[in-house]
C-alpha cells in the first residue's frame, strides 16, 4: 500500500515537473498564457473589491458574457463524447489513440465552466452553501443545483478515465477494462446530460418566452457537437505540429463527417425556431425581434447575430462540399463553425432573453473592459490547463515518460 502510494506520488511529481520543461515555443506560449491569466486575476480582484458594478450587467440584463461563455464551453466539454462514441461504440481505429485528447479537453473545459460560474457570483466565498450536506442544496427543484452536480461528476468521470489510462501507460501495464470502460459509457450519457441540464437552466424559466422553448435543448446539443469536434480538429493539428505524436488525416476526416451532420441539424433546428417565432408574430417574439432586427430603436445584437449566421452558413457549405477534405479548407470551416456558434449560443442566446425585460423595458448590454479581461483570463486558464495536460500525457503515451526510466531524470 505504502509502496503503491509512493509509486503514484512519484508519477504525479514527474508529471508536475515535466509541465515546467519544454522548448522555447513552449516557454513562450506558457508565459503568454500566464500573463493573460494574471491580467484576468487582477481584473477579478478588482471585481471582488468593487462588486459586479464593474461589469456591464445591471438589474435589467443580469447575466452577461460570463454565463454566455459558460454556456458555450459546457458544449465543448460535452462534445468530447463525439470522439469517444466512434472509438468505444463503433470501434473506429483512426481515432483510437486520440480519444484521450478529447477527454482531456473536456477536463479543461469543465475547469473553465466552473471558473466562469464562480466569477459570476456576487458572494463567491459562500460557495460552501452549495455543498450537499454542508450547505442547503435546493435539489432537485433548482436546475442550477442539477447543473452543479452533473458538471462536477462529469469532471470526476473524465479525470478518472484519463488519469487511470495514463497511469497504466506509465507503468507499462494494460488498463483493466472493468475499471474504466463502465465509466466511459456512463460518461457518454453524462456528456449529453450536462448540456441538456444547462439548456434547462434557461428553458425552465416560464417568464422568459425567448428561453421557454423546447427546441433550446436539442439546439444546444447539435451546436455543441459541431463546435466541440471543430475545436478538437484544430487541437489535434496543433498537437501534430508541435510533437512527434502521429495523427493521420483520416482521423480528422472522421471528425469532419461528424461536424457535417451536426452543422446541418443545427441549422435545421435554427430554422424551426425562426419559423416558430416569426411566422406567428405574437407578443412573445419581442426578444427574437430584438436579436435579429432590433426593437424600439435598439440594435446592439443585430450585427453579431447576422455575423454568426453568416459564419454558420459558410461553415455548413464548406463542411458539406468535398473541398473540406483538404485540411486547409477544413480548418477554415472549423474556425467559422466555432466563432459562429460561440456568438449564436453565447451572447445570442443569453442576452436577448433579458431584452425587453419582463416589464417591457429596453436596456441594452455591452461587456466592459474589466469583464472582458476576466473572460480572457478564464479562457487562458483553460488553454493553460489543456497545454499542461498535453505536455504530461504525450510523453507518457509515447513511452518517453514511464516507470522504466524513473531513475534517469
Amino acid at each position, binding site marked *: 500500500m505504502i509502496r503503491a502510494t509512493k509509486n503514484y506520488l512519484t508519477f504525479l511529481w514527474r508529471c508536475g515537473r515535466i509541465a*515546467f520543461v519544454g522548448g522555447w515555443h513552449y516557454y513562450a506560449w506558457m508565459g503568454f498564457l500566464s500573463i493573460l491569466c494574471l491580467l484576468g486575476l487582477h481584473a477579478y480582484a478588482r471585481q471582488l*473589491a468593487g462588486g*459586479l458594478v464593474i461589469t456591464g450587467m445591471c*438589474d435589467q440584463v443580469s447575466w452577461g458574457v460570463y454565463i454566455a461563455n459558460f454556456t458555450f464551453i459546457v458544449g465543448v466539454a460535452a462534445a468530447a463524447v463525439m470522439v469517444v462514441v466512434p472509438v468505444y461504440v463503433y470501434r473506429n481505429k483512426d481515432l483510437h489513440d486520440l480519444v484521450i485528447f478529447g477527454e482531456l479537453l473536456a477536463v479543461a473545459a469543465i475547469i473553465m465552466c466552473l471558473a466562469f*460560474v464562480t466569477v459570476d457570483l456576487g458572494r463567491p466565498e459562500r460557495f460552501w452553501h452549495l455543498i450537499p450536506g454542508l*450547505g442547503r442544496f435546493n435539489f432537485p427543484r433548482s436546475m442550477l443545483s442539477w447543473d452543479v452536480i452533473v458538471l462536477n461528476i462529469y469532471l470526476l468521470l473524465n479525470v478518472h478515465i484519463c488519469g487511470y489510462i495514463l497511469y497504466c501507460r506509465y507503468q507499462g501495464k494494460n488498463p483493466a477494462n472493468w475499471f474504466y470502460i463502465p465509466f466511459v459509457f456512463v460518461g457518454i450519457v453524462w456528456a449529453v446530460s450536462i448540456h441538456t441540464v444547462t439548456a434547462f437552466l434557461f428553458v425552465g424559466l416560464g417568464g422568459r418566452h425567448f428561453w421557454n422553448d423546447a427546441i433550446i435543448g436539442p439546439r444546444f446539443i447539435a451546436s455543441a457537437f459541431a463546435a466541440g469536434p471543430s475545436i478538437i480538429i484544430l487541437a489535434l493539428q496543433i498537437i501534430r505540429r508541435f510533437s512527434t505524436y502521429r495523427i493521420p488525416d483520416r482521423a480528422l476526416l472522421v471528425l469532419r463527417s461528424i461536424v457535417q451532420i451536426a452543422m446541418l441539424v443545427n441549422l435545421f433546428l435554427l430554422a424551426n425556431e425562426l419559423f416558430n417565432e416569426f411566422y406567428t408574430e405574437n407578443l412573445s417574439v419581442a426578444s427574437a425581434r430584438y436579436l435579429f432586427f432590433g426593437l424600439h430603436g435598439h440594435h446592439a445584437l443585430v450585427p453579431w447575430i447576422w455575423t454568426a449566421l453568416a459564419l454558420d452558413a459558410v461553415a455548413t457549405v464548406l463542411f458539406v462540399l468535398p473541398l473540406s477534405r483538404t485540411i486547409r479548407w477544413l480548418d477554415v470551416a472549423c474556425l467559422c463553425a466555432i466563432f459562429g456558434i460561440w456568438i449564436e449560443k453565447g451572447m445570442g442566446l443569453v442576452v436577448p432573453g433579458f431584452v425587453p425585460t*419582463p416589464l417591457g423595458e429596453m436596456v441594452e448590454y455591452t461587456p466592459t473592459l474589466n469583464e472582458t479581461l476576466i473572460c480572457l483570463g478564464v479562457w487562458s486558464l483553460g488553454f493553460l490547463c489543456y497545454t499542461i495536460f498535453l505536455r504530461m500525457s504525450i510523453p507518457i503515451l509515447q513511452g518517453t515518460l514511464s516507470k522504466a526510466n524513473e531513475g*534517469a531524470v
Partner: protein
Amino acid sequence: MTGPIPSGDSSQPTAPDSGMSRRSFLRTSVAFASGVAAVAAGLAPLRKLGDYCSVDEFIQKHYQELTPEEMTRVLARIEREVERQYGIRPHVRDYKPMNGVEYVYALNLTRCVGCRRCVYACVAENNQSRNPEIQYIRVLKMPNGTFDLEKGDHNYQPAAVPEKGFFYMPVQCHHCKNPPCVKVCPVKATWQEPDGITVIDYNWCIGCRYCEAACPYWARRFNFTEPSIPADEINPNMSYLGNRPRHKGVMEKCHFCIQRTRAGRYPACLEVCPTGSRKFGNILDPDSEVSYILKNKRVYVLKEELLTLPRFFYYFDI
C-alpha cells in the same frame, strides 16, 4: 507585471540526476519568486476589500437553522455591524409570522395617479441604496386601451400627474404562491413564509442572480456594489428578513414591509399613498378589506397565464 517563468534544468531526459546544481537552483528560485510576486501584484486590488466578511458571518447558518440563542447573537452582531458602518445604533429584530394570517395586496388601477410617492416611501422605510439607486416598486405609465407592457413608459417625468389618456401601474414583488424565484434558487436563500411573504436571507444568498432571471415581474434587485445610504436617513427599526442594510453581492426585494406588517402596521407604500389606491390585509379574514375587494371588484392578475398565483392583485373601481 511578469509571468512566472517555467523552471527546470533540462529537457534532456538522459541527464544523470546528481542533485540540483547551484545554477538551476538559483533559476528555479528566481522563477518561483517572480511567480509569487506576479500573483501578489495581480491580487493587489483586494486590499480595498476592507471588512468584506467576518468569520462569524462566513460560518453563519441558514436562517431556518438558527436556534433562538444563535439568532440573538446574530442580531447583536448585525447591530454592531450597522453601527460601525453608519454610526447609528439600530434595533434589529426577527419578527415571526402571525398564526392565521396570509397577506394579500390589492392595488386600484382606477385611482393610482402615478405620483411615485410609494416608490420613495419604500426606499426610505427599507434602507434601500441611494447610490446606486435601488427601488422595489416600478411604476409604469400605460396608454389607455392596452396592457401590453412594452407600450409602458418607465421613465415618465411630466410636470404633473396624472396625464390624460394614461393609467399608472405600479409593479413590485407579487409574493406568488407558486414563486419561480424560490424554485430556482440553488441554495434555498429565498423562500415563502407561512404568512405568504417571500423573503431572502441576505447572509445566505450567493449572488448568482438566477432568481432575478426567473421572476416574471422584474421584482428582484441585485446589489452590484456596496449600497450607500446617508447616515441620517437610516431607518433604525430593522428586521433580519426585512429592511436591515444589505451588502454588495446579494439580492433584495419587496418583503411587504415585514418589520411593519408583522407588528400589525401597514406597509409604508400603502400609508403614503395619497389616493388610497393601495389596500393590504389578511385574506384568511373574510371581513378584511382585501377579502371584500377580491369578492366584489373586477380584478386583474398580471401575467395570470404563468400560473405564478400572485398575492398581489390589481382592481378597478366600477
